[in-house]
């Protein structure tokens, strides 16, 4: 079954988590080894209570910062109100452990659920809002929480506050800071592994793609709306747990503990930590969190000067290293690797284009349907798109037959790319229909169209340019990653198997392209021609039935364009794919296309076989000022 609704939870078989024994033992060992030292040294001079408390505060800050990193660092959605989530978690867990005296673990579980629910409420406006609009909405949310719900005395005790005890089970409670530190360290390991599972599965890649460009993400079949909500929910739940753990550590919270006006202002502090650490860098964020948690505690004797110096230092660090700690480290590494990389770059000449990967259909996708060569693959009827008063596409109609390369030509502004966007779902046409394999596309969101087997390239290169070639090839296989999101978060055996298959496939594709040397090179460091090739490879990696190519020759050298013709024929003849091609380079079009549509002012002006169009030099001459053929 294909799941074209794209809701990540529904795309697989039911729940059957299979933890292997080895995995469980390994997990227990890591957790135990990290939690044992504080227990061993409790009430000894090696770990005095106040030191244990300070370390525990540091660990709590790491947990809080990691929660925001998921949302801001990975998915690129700004929350300036994360303090509210900390507060929600702390109050939820505090109420359950203080009044009904339930164990801390129950409190934490409920905190996670409540945090996730609040995040869901905040995530819904996020679907419509971007950038600053979203940021300001999150501030308003936090402000509302602190001025109303947190001050509602029947619930939270208002400014009189709430005591947070630390009962574990029965009569045992974490009375000593060292014991609680051990407990926190287990959570640190848990958060860390959970976070790793996000980044090493399709979930993290989908987040990254959304941060880079939502259209690119949708082009690769990522259901952007669902993943945005998912990022909010994960982040909100993690923040609530972190806030609850912190609340139980400090033992008392009130309505002002997590307020925007309080010192510290956790909402802004977490943003500072994530940005200083380096967006999306786990270790960078952890280092920054420790720094911000501990340094002020050791500098209190400076009586206010430390705040002044700290603020100036923050401005200075941001001005010098806008990418934070991780950004600075990466820059140094890149500088060191620059010489070597430059040598590699020159070895692959743009003129000498390698072969495209010839890959079978991935296992995660439905069986390739029986299509007769020559039958209509894509039928577009009377599509119109209007921008303001301008008709960009005016009742355009075209048919693409299986196994053909169909050219779409016309002068700049003729509406070619707009028509592409209408077919792939990025713009909404006023009317008309587009059927792919007999299925109406217009009711489907873009990512679902990609899942059906329509791959496309973009004029500006549809890749996540900050990520490496390999990571882009993994992202491109999003539609083939058939495991449900919860399994990915827990990295179950089936998710792991699927990921391994995808990595193998990415390696094969990169090898076929001859790009092994660039496997870990960020795409932005490649030449334009190389980026084009990687993009083509990424589109082909899931073996889509139809390829929409938007000016693939743009920015290529003449020799490379000639080679591109070879590759396009290869896509048609060897891979058996169908291509709809926007191109300005007329010799290329006449060389490879079986059928050509000429578009101007949004209307289809002429269409026919390449021979027929080539016999009308006035058509071509009118648009390109020269008679070709």
């Amino acid at each position, binding site marked *: 079954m294909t799941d074209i609704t794209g809701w990540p939870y529904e795309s697989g078989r039911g729940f059957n988590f299979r933890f292997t024994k080895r995995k469980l033992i390994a997990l227990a060992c890591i957790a135990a080894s990290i939690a044992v030292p504080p227990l061993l040294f409790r009430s000894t001079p090696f770990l005095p209570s106040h030191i244990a408390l300070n370390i525990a505060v540091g660990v709590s800050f790491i947990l809080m910062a990691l929660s925001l990193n998921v949302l801001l660092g990975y998915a690129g959605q*700004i929350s300036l109100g994360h303090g509210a989530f900390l507060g929600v978690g702390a109050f939820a867990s505090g109420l359950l452990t203080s009044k009904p005296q339930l164990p801390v673990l129950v409190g934490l579980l409920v905190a996670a659920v409540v945090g996730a629910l609040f995040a869901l409420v905040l995530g819904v*406006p996020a679907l*419509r*809002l*971007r*950038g*600053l*609009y979203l*940021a*300001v*909405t999150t*501030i*308003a*949310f936090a*402000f*509302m929480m*602190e*001025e*109303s719900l947190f*001050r*509602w*005395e029947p619930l939270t005790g*208002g400014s009189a506050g709430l005591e947070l005890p630390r009962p574990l089970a029965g009569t045992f409670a974490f009375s000593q800071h060292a014991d609680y530190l051990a407990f926190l360290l287990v959570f640190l390991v848990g958060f860390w592994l959970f976070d790793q599972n996000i980044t090493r599965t399709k979930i993290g890649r989908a987040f990254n793609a959304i941060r880079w460009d939502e259209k690119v993400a949708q082009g690769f079949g990522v259901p952007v709306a669902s993943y945005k909500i998912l990022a909010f929910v994960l982040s909100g739940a993690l923040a609530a747990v972190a806030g609850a753990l912190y609340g139980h550590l400090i033992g008392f919270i009130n309505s002002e503990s997590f307020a*925007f*006006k309080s*010192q510290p202002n956790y909402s*802004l502090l977490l*943003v*500072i930590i994530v*940005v*200083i650490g380096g*967006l999306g860098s786990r270790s960078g964020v952890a280092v920054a969190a420790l720094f911000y948690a501990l340094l002020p505690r050791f500098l209190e004797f400076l009586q*206010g*000067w430390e*705040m*002044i110096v*700290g*603020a*100036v230092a*923050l*401005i200075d660090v*941001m*001005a010098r290293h*806008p*990418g*934070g700690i991780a950004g600075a480290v990466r820059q140094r590494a890149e500088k060191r690797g620059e010489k070597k990389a430059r040598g590699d770059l020159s070895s692959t000449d743009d003129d000498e284009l390698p072969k495209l990967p010839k890959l079978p259909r991935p296992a995660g996708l439905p069986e390739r349907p029986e299509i007769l060569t020559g039958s209509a693959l894509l039928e577009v009827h009377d599509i119109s798109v209007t921008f303001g008063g301008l008709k960009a596409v005016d009742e355009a109609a075209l048919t693409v037959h299986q196994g053909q390369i169909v050219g779409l030509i016309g002068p700049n502004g003729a509406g070619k790319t707009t028509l592409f966007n209408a077919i792939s779902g990025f713009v909404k046409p006023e009317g008309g229909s587009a059927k792919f394999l007999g299925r109406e596309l217009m009711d489907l969101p873009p990512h679902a169209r990609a899942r059906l087997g329509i791959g496309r390239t973009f004029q500006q290169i549809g890749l996540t340019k900050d990520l490496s070639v390999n990571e882009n090839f993994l992202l491109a296989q999003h539609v083939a990653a058939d495991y449900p999101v919860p399994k990915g978060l827990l990295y179950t055996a089936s998710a792991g198997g699927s990921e391994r298959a995808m990595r193998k496939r990415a390696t094969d594709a990169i090898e076929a392209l001859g790009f092994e040397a660039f496997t870990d090179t960020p795409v932005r460091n490649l030449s334009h021609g190389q980026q084009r090739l990687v993009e083509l490879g990424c589109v082909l990696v899931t073996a889509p039935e139809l390829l929409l190519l938007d000016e693939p020759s743009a920015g290529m050298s003449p020799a490379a364009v000639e080679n591109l013709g070879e590759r396009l024929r290869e896509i048609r003849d060897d891979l058996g794919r169908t291509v709809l091609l926007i191109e300005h380079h007329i010799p290329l079009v006449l060389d490879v296309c079986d059928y050509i549509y000429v578009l101007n002012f949004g209307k289809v002006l002429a269409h026919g076989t390449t021979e027929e169009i080539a016999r009308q030099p006035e058509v071509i001459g009118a648009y390109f000022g020269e008679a070709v053929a």
Partner: protein
Amino acid sequence: MGQTLITGLATGGIYALLAVGIVLVFKGSRVLNFAQGEMGTFGLFIAFWLIERQNLPWIVGALGAIVVVAGIGFAFERIVVRNMGDAPRLSVAVATIGLLLLLFALELKIFGPSPQILPGPISGLGIKVAGFFVSPTQILALLTAIGLGIALATFLKRTDFGLGVLAASQDPGATRLVGVPLARVSAFTWALAGGVSAMAALLIEPTVGIFAAGFMTGLFVRGLAAALIGGLTSLPGAFVGGVVVGIVEAFIQQRYVQSTFPGIGSVAVMVVIVLVLLVRPQGLWGKAAV
């Protein structure tokens, strides 16, 4: 009813001043200035020092505060924002959080944490208009907001430099090509933003009577709400947004004054934001997506 409307209009005018500062900086540098509110608080401390400690007249203190805070905005643009040229806007925003923290720390270090008292320029019950009382500060707030609005509109639409400011927010590259000194435009917006922030603080303080470090945080959020409702890049939008937020808040507070549920005004502001943005994700006057 009418009384509440007047209260709402007067506070709305002050929110509008803050919103104008936020919009100006956003137009000039595409960045959210988190220090917008705290710059105003810092201005209050300057005014307090000049008026209460040096025994200068109110107007001198106020002007001094406006000039100093405008200077802070100008200096921050020159030293930090300009050098961050192509850096991610979020990093620049975090740098403005740094400025917020710096001002806050300076206030604490110099004046201490306890609240200070700064009386308003005019005292007394105010005048009765059509059966409603209007306090002197309310009149002053309204007049300042209206006056500043007219002055800004005239300046931006009627002078070459003003048109440059408007153009720069649309397309910085093209603006530079036609010979507008972009650097000066950006510095100017920051200075102006600092100035209006100080004005807003000076006008709102008398209604509370006392102030301390962090005084403007709540107002900053309301100014943000106003700017957002207006569309972030629109100055008329900022004025309308401010008035909308002020009036909605005044009415809700008046209606639910007996409510045991706290912060009903804040809830109302949040609901208004969400409703406006659900209908118009770009705000009422906003154009391009950010």
